C-alpha cells in the first residue's frame, strides 16, 4: 500500500488539460505588509500539491495570489507562458478554479442552482445557458456524489455534503487546475477523509491538477504527491512528503518538537508532536 496511490495511466474520463502554472519571484501582501516574499513555485500538472505551514505563514495568501485574487507586489504568476495579470479574469477562471475557505450560500438556494453558478465564466452576451451547461452541472454533481441532492436547499445539508456541493460548483467551472483553501476545516474527521478522497479521485480520474492548503500535517502527507511547507512567506521545503516532512522541517516551520514515524496505513510520514509534558521526563514535571 502506497499513499497517495500512483496515478493511473490516461483513462477514458481523464480529460483535464495540462497547464504550466508558476509563481516567479512572487511577493504578495495587504496594505504594505508583505506576507509572501519573493517566492518561486512550479505547480506540477496533473498532480496533487498540498501547501502546509503555521498560521500567518502565507499559505492562503499564496493560494489567493496564484488564483489572481491578489495583485502581486512584485514578481508574477505565469500561466502557460503568460502573466495572469495580463490575461482577462474570465479567461483565467476557465482554467484555474478556486474554492475559498468560507464561500457564502445565498439563503434558500438549491444545490443545482448553486452549482450552476460555476458556469459564469463560460457565459457571456451571446452565450446564454444551454443544455451543455445542464450536462456539465449534472456531471459535476455526479462526480461529487451529490446528484441525488440536486433539488435540496444547501442550508439543509450536512457540513460534508455542503463541502462536496461547493467542490461541485468549482468543477462546474470546468477548471483544469483546482485550488482549495482549507477544504476540510469545520468538518469532522469522517467528512475530512470523505472530501480528501473525493479530491484525490478527481485528480486521478479526470487529471485535474489539485492544489490545496491543509492544516492537518498527517492528512497532507498522506494525500500529497508534492508537499510544500511554508514559513515566514517563503518555502521552507518542497518535494515528495517522505523526503520533505522531517523533524528539522517541522521544527523550522512550526517551532514544534515532533517525532516522524511511518503512517501504519501506507507508510507516509506521520508527525507525532511531543509537547512539554510527554517527552523525556524532566525533574519536577509530569512524567
Amino acid at each position, binding site marked *: 500500500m502506497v499513499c497517495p496511490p500512483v496515478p493511473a495511466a490516461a483513462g477514458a474520463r481523464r480529460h483535464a488539460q495540462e497547464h504550466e502554472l508558476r509563481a516567479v519571484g512572487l511577493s504578495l501582501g*495587504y496594505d504594505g505588509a508583505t506576507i509572501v516574499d519573493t517566492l518561486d513555485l512550479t505547480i506540477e500538472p496533473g498532480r496533487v500539491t498540498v501547501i502546509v505551514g503555521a498560521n500567518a505563514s502565507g499559505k492562503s495568501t499564496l493560494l489567493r495570489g496564484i488564483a489572481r485574487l491578489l495583485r502581486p507586489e512584485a514578481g508574477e504568476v505565469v500561466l502557460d507562458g503568460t502573466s495572469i495579470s495580463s490575461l482577462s*479574469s474570465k479567461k483565467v477562471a476557465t482554467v484555474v478554479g478556486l474554492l*475559498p475557505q468560507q464561500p457564502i450560500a445565498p439563503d434558500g438556494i438549491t444545490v*443545482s442552482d448553486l452549482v450552476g453558478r460555476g458556469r459564469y465564466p463560460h457565459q457571456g452576451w451571446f452565450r446564454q445557458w444551454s443544455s451543455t451547461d445542464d*450536462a456539465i452541472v449534472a456531471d459535476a454533481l455526479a462526480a461529487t456524489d451529490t446528484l441525488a441532492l440536486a433539488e435540496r436547499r444547501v442550508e439543509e445539508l450536512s457540513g460534508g455534503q455542503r463541502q462536496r456541493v461547493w467542490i461541485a460548483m*468549482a468543477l462546474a467551472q470546468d477548471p483544469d487546475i483546482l485550488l482549495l483553501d482549507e477544504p476540510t476545516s469545520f468538518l469532522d474527521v469522517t467528512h475530512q477523509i470523505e472530501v480528501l478522497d473525493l479530491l484525490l479521485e478527481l485528480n486521478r480520474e479526470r487529471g485535474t491538477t489539485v492544489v490545496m492548503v491543509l492544516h492537518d500535517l498527517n492528512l497532507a502527507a498522506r494525500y500529497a504527491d508534492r508537499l510544500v511547507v511554508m514559513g515566514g512567506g517563503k518555502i521552507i521545503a518542497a518535494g515528495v512528503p517522505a523526503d520533505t516532512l522531517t523533524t528539522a522541517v517541522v521544527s523550522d516551520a512550526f517551532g514544534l518538537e515532533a517525532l516522524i514515524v511511518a503512517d501504519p496505513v501506507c507508510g507516509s510520514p506521520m508527525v507525532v508532536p511531543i509537547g512539554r509534558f510527554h517527552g523525556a521526563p524532566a525533574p519536577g514535571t509530569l512524567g
Partner: protein
Amino acid sequence: MSAIITASRLIQRRREGRVVAILAAVLLAIVVLSLAVGAYSLSIPDLVRTLLGGGAGNENFIVLKLRLPRVSLAVLAGVAFAVSGALFQTVLRNPLASPDIIGVTGGASAAAVFSMLILGLGGVATSVSAFLGALIVAAAIYVLAWRGGVAGYRFVLIGVGIAFMVQGFVSYLLSRADLRNAQEALVWLVGSVSGARWQDITVVAVFLAVLLPAVAVLSGRMRGLQMGDDAASALGIRVERARLALLVLAVALAAVATAAVGPLAFIAFVSAPIARRVVGTGGLALLPAALVGAIITTGADFVAQHLLPGDLQLPAGIVTGAIGAPYLLWLLATANRNGKGA
C-alpha cells in the same frame, strides 16, 4: 442525468413565474382600486371607458388629472426604491444596507430641505437638489469605507453614522426656519405621492428605462457577489469594479425616486427581503422585488388616503414607516440568531 438539472431549473423558473403573476395581479388590483375609489367613485366599466378616452368631463379630471398621475408615480417610485434596496443589500451582503438606512435618501432630504429653507427654491430645483444630495452622500460613504476595497459591514456602519449626521443637519435647518416653511419641508420629508406632476413621472420613467436594463446586464455578476468576494473573483468577476457599477446604479435609482416623492421610508429596505422570502429560491428575485415595492407604495398611499379612521388623509410615507419599523425590529431580533445576512 442532465435531465435532473433541466427539470430542477424549470421548477424554479415556474415558481418564480407564478410569484410574479400573483404579485402583478395584486398590483393591478390596487392600481384599479386607487383609480376607481375616492370621494367620487367609478364603476370598473366607467373607469375603463375613461382610461380609453371616453369619459365625461368630471371623470376625465378626477381619473386622468388627479388619480392616474398619483398612482403612476407611486408604481415607478416603488420600483426604483425596491430595486435600489435589492442592489445595496445584495452587493454589500447585508440586510441593513439599504439607501434609507445608510443615509443615501437622508442625504437627498438634507439637500432638498436646504434648498427649500435656505436657498428659497422649490419645485424642480428641490428635486435636483435631492438627487445631488443622494449622490454626494453615497460618494462620501464609498470613499470613507474604502480600505483597498469596500467591505459591506464597514459601508453600512459608516452609512448609519452619516445618516445620523444628515438627520442632525435637517433638524438644525428645521429649527431655524419659520413655521410655514418648516411645515412645507416636513411634508416633503415624510414622503408623498400626492400632487404628482407628469414631468416628475417622465423623469423617473426615463431613469428607470436606462437603469433597469443596466441592472439586468450586471445581474450575473450580482449572483457571483452573493457568494462572497473570493468566490466571485474565482469565477472571473472583477469584484470592486462590478460592485462600484452596481452601487452607482443603486444610488441613481434611490436618488431619482427620492427626488420625485421624498424619502418614502423603508420601501427600499423591506421589498427585496419580502420578495426573496416569497420566491424562496435564493435567486436575486429582482422582478418580484420591484413588484413588491410598487405594491407597498401604491398600497400605502391607498391606505393613507382612504382607510384611516376619522377622515385622516396622511402622506404615504407615514404608512410605509409603520410597516417598515416593525420589520427592522424583527430583523435585528433574529439576525444574530441566524448569524447571516441577505
